[in-house]
């Protein structure tokens, strides 16, 4: 049994073998593997006794349930109006230059994926970004780079 299969069996056992468990199961896979591979989606379909199309349909609806490979750390910079006004473009450019990736791309070493996100709910403390599940408000380009650097160290 592959590690993905094992992970999915554990998640299904923990959440129950019902359609209502689909979201927590998919979320659990993304938590460990950063995205939903074809293998994972097919395995979930088998374990929950759903059609693969149903599983893919649900997964592809949600922004945080990625169906393409992502880096170990996913950076999401808020792009909605107040963060825009507070300089999100400078943040994105700084990270983009430092990691040598454009928005939507993953670094060669698979450590980082740079994405933008719609309103993250920190409009009074913009610009803001999420790295995985951690939130970083009141950013400056300098601060953003320091945070990324910390993650780069940990990801070795």
């Amino acid at each position, binding site marked *: 049994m592959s590690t993905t299969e094992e992970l999915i069996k554990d998640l299904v056992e923990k959440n129950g073998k*019902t*359609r*209502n*468990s*689909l*979201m*927590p199961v*998919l*979320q659990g896979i993304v938590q460990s593997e950063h995205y939903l591979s074809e293998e994972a989606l097919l395995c979930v379909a088998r374990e929950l006794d759903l059609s693969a199309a149903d599983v893919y*349909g*649900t997964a592809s*609806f*949600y*922004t*945080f*349930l990625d169906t393409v490979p992502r880096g170990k750390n996913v950076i999401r910079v808020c792009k*909605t*109006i*107040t963060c*825009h*006004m507070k300089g999100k473009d400078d943040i994105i450019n700084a990270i983009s230059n430092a990691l040598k990736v454009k928005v939507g791309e993953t670094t060669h070493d698979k450590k980082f994926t740079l994405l933008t*996100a*719609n*309103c*993250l*709910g*920190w*409009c*009074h*403390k*913009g610009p803001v970004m*999420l790295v995985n*599940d*951690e*939130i970083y408000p009141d950013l400056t380009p300098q601060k953003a780079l320091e945070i990324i650097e910390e993650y780069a160290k940990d990801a070795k």
Partner: protein
Amino acid sequence: MENNLKKVDIIFESDEKISPLAILEKTQKRPADDIILDLIDSGLKGRGGAGFPTGLKWKFTRNEDSDVKYVICNADEGEPGTFKDREIIDRVPEKIFAGMAICGYVIGAKEGYIYVRGEYNFLLKGLQKKLEAFNQGMKKLNIDFTIALKSGSGAYVCGEESALFESMEGKRGEPRNKPPYPTVAGYNSKPTVINNVETLVYTTMICHMGPEKFKALGTTDSRGSKVFSVSGDTPISGIYELELGMPLNEFVNEFGDGDTKAIQVGGASGHCVPRKKFNDTIIGFEGIPTGGSMMIFNSSRSMYNVLHDYLEFFTEESCGQCTPCRVGCQQLLKGIEAVKRGERPPAYLDDLKKLTATMKIAAKCGLGQSVGNPFNSIIDNFREEIIY
């Protein structure tokens, strides 16, 4: 600058002497119908934006004949410019739990769920811990109600109640046709009360302090207070609980930076109010209602950029199931870009306004229906900025 705004402290008030669990214990000794009457009497309307009377919602669900019912707390706060629910969850979660349990007692539900947006995953660990303690506390009091957490995965439309149920059922977050309304068939097609985070806290506090104190605040059409999320061009952005029914000019005097050109009331799906209308705009159900988002723009901002940002947002967040919204959002965005580039005449904006009227009638849910709010209010008041 004179301060006319009445600041209120109900939501975040922390009274050491009486815990939310104690309020629950006290309240569930009262007849359920009395609690409903108190809520109706208080005039509390939903604080998520739509403004349905909370007492009636509970009453309708109570009247449904079903063994299984649910209480759901909608914490899928995603409206641009809104961040008050995150703060409430973080600071006074027990008041939310108590509100849910009171609701469970009133309608006859044994299970409650809090659906927290994926963007707030960092809150889950702490919230889960407090929730377990509260569930334990209820068990000790022999209250037959348990609350669990559900988490979203980055979809604005899941804040729409029926889309939220779909998401909880492991499906694409596509809104359902209404009726049936959630009070009849909600989560798992069972009668369900779904309330916003802030609404549930107010129910707890109304049960605690009585409807009179709440009713004394606000106006006839907009009873009570509300938590506002203030952002944009203001020196004091943040969260403020204010009395409803305030004139917008008083708000601007307090929060503006002295050069306020426009305020977007109610987030991306709300209305844009220009400076010349500050004096005769009331914030409340008789004027412009809001889920709490107040975005302030000063004269250095291009309203074209603001509208463009909103339309991009809706184009991305439209679930895509109904054509008026899916195609409408795209065409509005392309349309203002074409006018800006001079590829379409300024009069084309009027055609686009007609499109928003169609969307308002034909779109399946509030997302598509409300895109016309920002579109028309920005086009009507800042037409020259869109064209040139």
